[in-house]
């Protein structure tokens, strides 16, 4: 009896398990194996094994600068998403319908537009002949070109990542007792103090989980840096693409991909730890 009941969960999770093994674990393992293969420019992937892909990547300032840039862009994007998204979520939660629905749609809007179309829109705005540059020329400040800079990547990333910050924060605010703020006011707190002392500590969990999503997605973003960063400004995902599709050095690409994966995983795990510790404190 017990044997049967204990095997039932396994049986029920079988489809998911097969899917996970086939679509995630298998390709990852293959990539890991590939990253240890030797490579020759004339022959291609060799059958011998080596660590040289990793030593190349980790000792080459070119790759290191790309890793560093990836982390920096992901970090700045996350910070900006917190700075913009948290107040926005708060304001949204204080809105009445129909405005709330309208603004929610505006916020989720970027996710409904293809990344190519969206990036194309940004390049028209940010390019040297774009709207912003033209406006700056008209004001006598000379042309500005934001396109193909880290700023362009960050702007476009923040644009599309904001919903991932706003929605968890908004959900956290929705769960709060609406009487909390009036209670703080009645005790003499100003509006700002009430938000800082009462609301913020309780939605910090939402902010942290939003940051986790935004950071992870930004660090592995591909289309936006590819389209708005140009040929020179590479991020981790675009350089992996280059190794695979242009250099045809698959083992090196696999090694880069693996390093990025591990680095990302480590950062997110450490962060998750922090969230859990915090959750234990807030929720008990």
């Amino acid at each position: 009896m017990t044997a049967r009941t204990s095997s039932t969960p396994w049986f029920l999770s079988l489809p998911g398990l097969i899917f996970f093994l086939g679509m995630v674990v298998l390709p990852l393992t293959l990539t890991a194996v590939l990253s240890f293969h030797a490579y020759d420019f004339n022959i291609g992937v060799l059958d011998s094994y080596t660590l040289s892909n990793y030593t190349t990547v980790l000792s080459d300032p070119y790759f290191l600068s790309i890793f560093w840039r990836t982390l920096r862009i992901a970090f700045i994007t996350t910070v900006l998403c917190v700075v913009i998204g948290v107040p926005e979520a708060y304001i949204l939660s204080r809105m009445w319908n129909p405005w709330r629905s309208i603004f929610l749609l505006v916020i989720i809007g970027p996710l409904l537009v293809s990344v190519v179309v969206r990036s194309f829109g940004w390049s028209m705005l940010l390019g040297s002949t774009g709207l912003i540059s033209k406006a700056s020329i008209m004001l006598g400040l000379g042309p500005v070109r934001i396109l193909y800079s880290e700023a362009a990547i960050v702007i476009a990333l923040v644009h599309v990542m904001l919903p991932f910050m706003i929605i968890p924060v908004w959900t956290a605010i929705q769960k709060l007792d609406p009487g909390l703020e009036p209670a703080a006011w009645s005790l003499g707190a100003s509006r700002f103090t009430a938000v800082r002392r009462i609301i913020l500590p309780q939605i910090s969990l939402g902010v942290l989980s939003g940051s986790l999503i935004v950071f992870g997605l930004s660090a592995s973003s591909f289309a936006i840096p590819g389209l708005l960063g140009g040929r020179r400004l590479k991020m981790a995902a675009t350089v992996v693409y280059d190794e695979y599709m242009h250099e045809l050095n698959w083992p090196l690409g696999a090694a880069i991909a693996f390093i990025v994966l591990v680095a990302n995983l480590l950062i997110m795990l450490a962060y998750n730890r922090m969230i859990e510790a915090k959750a234990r404190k807030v929720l008990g």
Partner: protein
Amino acid sequence: MSFLTLNSLSKIYGNFTAVDAVDLEVSKGEFVSLLGPSGCGKTTTLQMIAGLAEPSAGTVTLDGREITREKPNRRGLGIVFQTYALFPHMTVAQNVSFGLEMRKVGRAERDRRVAEALALVKLDRFADRYPRQLSGGQRQRVAIARALVIEPPVLLLDEPLSNLDAKLREEMQFELRRIQQTVGTTTIMVTHDQGEALSISDRVVVMEHGRMTQADVPAAVYDHPATEFISSFIGKMNNIPGIALKLGIRAHGVILPATDCPATEGESAVLSLRPERITIVPAGQGHLHGVVSARFFFGSHWLFNVDTAVGQIIVSWPNTDGSLPASQGQPVGLSWLPESARVSARTQETSRIDA
């Protein structure tokens, strides 16, 4: 001398009048209950006093100072919310201390006053707990301590006991009254529980459809309800429709006596009679005859349903020595002192409610 004055205070949402020109004067140290059915505008009235809802018209004056448009954090009133609204990420002591921090009270004095407030509500041992680790009644007492520690001129309570079970609720009613009398804070409590309002307040204000219909001491509200609605809302009441006579009414050919008879003779009127003012007498005696159709035991008293020519009459009989005046199915007579009955003119509104 009135301490808190509401002067034709009104709140209009769109084309709906939630609170309609409420006038109220509360003296210092008084405990006033706002009583009324759901949706009659009690919370809205309280929120206008607290500054959490902006009045559409009228003024609020506190101790001679008009505070109608003042922000809630400048009024300094203590508020206990229906959901308590304790800060879940702070301990009991931190919750109580918050208002003092906002007032920039020094550390040492803050600790002293927090300890005092917690002792007042008998929660000194729970200072380091989080709200989620407390029972409903304890949370409610934290909310009271938090509101009282800032020594507010007025304490506002919005249905503070409605989340508690019947037993705890009764205990907390007395507890609330004890605390209020110890501290002497002017208190306004919203409730839809008539028993609660009658038992612990100095004065009961009854609201109906956004209007204040009676404001009086509990016994007066009970014994001399201003409207038929109040008479049936507060306590049990037998309302017998009929035609007004000089001293009583005629209903279905029976003459029912009453001394308090302001209705015009010959007009349609209602005779109101509390169940506990009726005595059961042997069949053939009394003002009204009927048959006992049901009997209910309540510990301290019995309730009899008696079917009569004028409809079903409820009679309450005290359980003093365990003796019973009648059993089910037995014909009985009903008697009362004419002073206990009240006749009022049948208004348009009351006839609509009956219909």
